[in-house]
């Protein structure tokens, strides 16, 4: 169980001038700007839940995770992990959580993987019987047995990520924090990792907090998502209601002849937003309001499309739409 209350993290940064002369001036300046990386967020994650923690780059996801696992001390507010504050009772909390940062490995770079696991076994005081059982389980769900004797630096990214995941699960943590565990991986490895998370959650009832930019991760794994933007929570609830909040949004990307431009193209309906991106024409619309079939006909007949790609709304688009709405509301108030 994780309880987050009014959690805030402020970083103080000196205001810097540009170039060398600016940097020298900075040395003598006392001006600081405050960056509110996380700004008064609250939520609770019950045992056994898989929560997707999403948002654009720099939204404050990693900062929150780092406070929840005891790396960073909050500026104000509190985090309770199974009733303990991670930044005060760091060691006790560390025994009960597992953490993977997709961008950084926690394994020792130049020793065989199995040696890393042996050191972790000592660090977490895992009994021989538990260790054997965990290695069998992880060897199976993550398929790591094959490269156990290889040094970590020789592993491929996919192998390394599976190894990192195994390392974080070795001591059977009650809570697992995964910060972009599928970043840069191919579809097969992503699939393997998702299955492992599922297996772990089912077998041991492990609570999982996961950040990702991959919509498929979210759809496969998470019953609930928390959407963060500029350090604040914009949405906290089931994935389906977030997606349906804007209707059944779809994106159509078309390759069209050069003379067809977004501004001058024939218009079918006000419901379709046209834009040019990377020399292609992009159509955005709500498939509940205007039939997909109709739009496709329009694309081939009126826009003379030569090629086409249909996609569901991406998480980026959801965030963008919510933000645009927020700004609009804000503008109305002013």
């Amino acid at each position, binding site marked *: 169980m994780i309880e987050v209350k009014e959690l805030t993290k402020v970083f103080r940064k000196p205001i810097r001038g540009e170039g060398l002369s600016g940097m020298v001036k900075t040395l003598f300046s006392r001006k600081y700007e405050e960056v509110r990386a996380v700004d008064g967020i609250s939520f609770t994650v019950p045992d056994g839940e898989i929560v997707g923690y999403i948002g654009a780059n720099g939204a404050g996801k990693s900062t929150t995770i780092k406070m929840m696992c005891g790396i960073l001390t909050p500026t104000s507010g509190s985090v309770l992990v199974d009733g303990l504050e991670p930044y005060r009772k760091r060691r006790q909390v560390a025994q009960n959580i597992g953490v993977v940062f997709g961008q950084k490995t926690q394994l020792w770079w130049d*020793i065989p993987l199995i040696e890393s696991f042996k050191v972790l076994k000592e660090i977490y005081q895992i009994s021989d019987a538990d260790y054997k059982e965990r290695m069998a389980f992880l060897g199976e769900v993550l398929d790591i047995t094959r490269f156990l004797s290889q040094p970590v630096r020789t592993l491929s990214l996919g192998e390394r990520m599976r190894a990192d995941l195994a390392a974080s699960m070795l001591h059977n943590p009650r809570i697992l924090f995964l910060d972009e565990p599928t970043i840069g991986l191919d579809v097969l490895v992503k699939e393997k990792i998702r299955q492992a998370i599922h297996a772990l959650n089912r077998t041991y009832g492990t609570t999982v907090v996961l950040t990702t930019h991959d919509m498929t991760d979210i759809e496969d794994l998470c019953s609930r998502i928390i959407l963060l933007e500029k350090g604040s929570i914009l949405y906290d609830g089931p994935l389906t209601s977030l997606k349906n909040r804007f209707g059944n949004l779809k994106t159509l990307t078309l390759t069209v002849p050069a003379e067809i431009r977004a501004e001058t193209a024939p218009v079918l309906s006000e419901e379709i937003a046209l834009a040019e991106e990377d020399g292609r024409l992009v159509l955005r619309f709500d498939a509940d309001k205007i039939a997909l079939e109709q739009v496709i006909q329009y694309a081939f007949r009126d826009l003379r499309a030569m090629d086409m790609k249909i996609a569901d709304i991406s998480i980026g688009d959801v965030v963008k739409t919510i933000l645009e709405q927020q700004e609009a509301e804000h503008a109305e108030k002013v």
Partner: protein
Amino acid sequence: MRYVHLYFTCIKRSMISRLEYKKDTVVALFSFFFSNFCSLAAIYFILQAIPALAGYSLYEVGFFYGFSMLPIALDHLFSDEFWLVAYRRVKEGDMDMLFLRPVPVMFQVFAETFQPEGFGELILGVALIAVCSANLTVKVTFGAVAVLCVGAVFGAVIITSLKVAMAALAFIFKRSGPLLQVIYNFSSYAKYPLAIYPALVRALLIFVLPFGLFISLPVDTLLHGAHNPWLLCGAIIGCAAVFFALAVWVWTACERRYESTGS
């Protein structure tokens, strides 16, 4: 007891890392012998050029030099990773993983590297002491030997404590390597008898950065019976205890201000 066991597990890990790169190991071994040979030659040349220093004979100065290597070598064996903390690891956010494990962060930094190069310095220091002692006629007392042992071991504790405290400042300043370097360089002052320095520097080397306390004073005690050995033992041990306690306190206070880096 758990930590002793854990320490050895980690050190074993560090040695495996070392041996992982075969060519690198060979190069390291070679450069280790070569650099030690060079420092030995340098000491020989210096001693050749200085027949006597502030009333100390050639072999007495050699003894000083040899003894000063012992606490530095002991410190080098166990705490080399703090240099990386001070120069790089905090700045690059490379401490994250240490905060995730149920073991004190400071312990993990100690256990991260064991630097066998320290043995070379230790052997070199002892050899220099042996050669110089053979050419000296001093009355060796039990007290003087005791104070030398205490000076070497607890001197290492003091050097390590200074290192830990300076490295901890990296949590606030992001990089404290140069500061650590400045403090560390003071140890080269202690390679010579305190008598050659003006009173102010002498006081500094006894009361502030006590390199003189655990190097010069014990050696003076052996060579000239200058101080009461048991009092000096007490002073060195007390000083080491205070420095170590301060270092742990500074580290713990600074550790909480670690900011990591964006990903």
